[in-house]
């Protein structure tokens, strides 16, 4: 599975999102690669990704219709990242729930 973390410049919050998503995936036992990307190239990067992880304020600035998206309020809180990813994977039947 390939996951793309998107932020405005691809060098600030998406670095944190990538780090926390990697930890969460490890905890959840899901094999996936996580890349971070800026908004401009993020959509192209998302095209061949299975899932996009993005902050709430930024999700308004990009049309991600047709993509699988997990939206986060807090970039720093590892629990939120893990809970939202877990919820997503359960909804897709990838994790038992």
């Amino acid at each position, binding site marked *: 599975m390939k996951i793309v973390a998107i932020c405005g410049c*691809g060098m600030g*919050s998406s670095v*944190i999102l990538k780090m926390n998503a990697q930890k969460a995936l490890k905890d959840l036992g899901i094999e996936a690669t996580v890349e971070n990307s*800026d908004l401009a190239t993020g959509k192209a990067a998302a095209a061949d990704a299975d899932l996009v992880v993005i902050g709430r304020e930024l999700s308004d600035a990009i049309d991600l219709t047709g993509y699988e998206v997990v939206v986060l309020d807090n970039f*720093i809180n590892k629990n939120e990242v893990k809970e939202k990813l877990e919820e997503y994977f359960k909804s897709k039947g990838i994790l038992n729930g």
Partner: protein
Amino acid sequence: MEKLVNISDIELGVDASCWQDAVKKTGEILVREGRVKSEYIDDMIETVENLGPYIVLCPGLAMPHARPGGNVIKSGVGIITLSEPINFGNRTNDPVKVVVGLAGINDNAHVKVVQRIAEVFEDETMIDYFATCNDRRIIMDIFNGKEIKK
């Protein structure tokens, strides 16, 4: 752990009139410390104007930054605590009490400092600890990996 932050990168109890002013104050540290050209301050403000207040990463913490490019000289941060909290317009994470302006050239130093920001503020009580702290050395030590004693 290597030294990521110097004492001169930090200012406490800074007065700011609005979010743009708060971003400017962190930017002025980055300029003074030779990390960015003064144009980078406008780049950081424009990023928020164009993309929204997503740089408020968690309750109380803003991390303004702009793309690496001609206006960044070397990676680093400018850290301020605000005398009065300021709203950036973020729906879930306002008001902001701590602003960490980030300059990055997508090198190792930049990634390390971003990771350290995430580690430090994972403890949600750190925002108020920073906001009421009156010793820059303590803040510097926290960023440089000293064990946090509160």
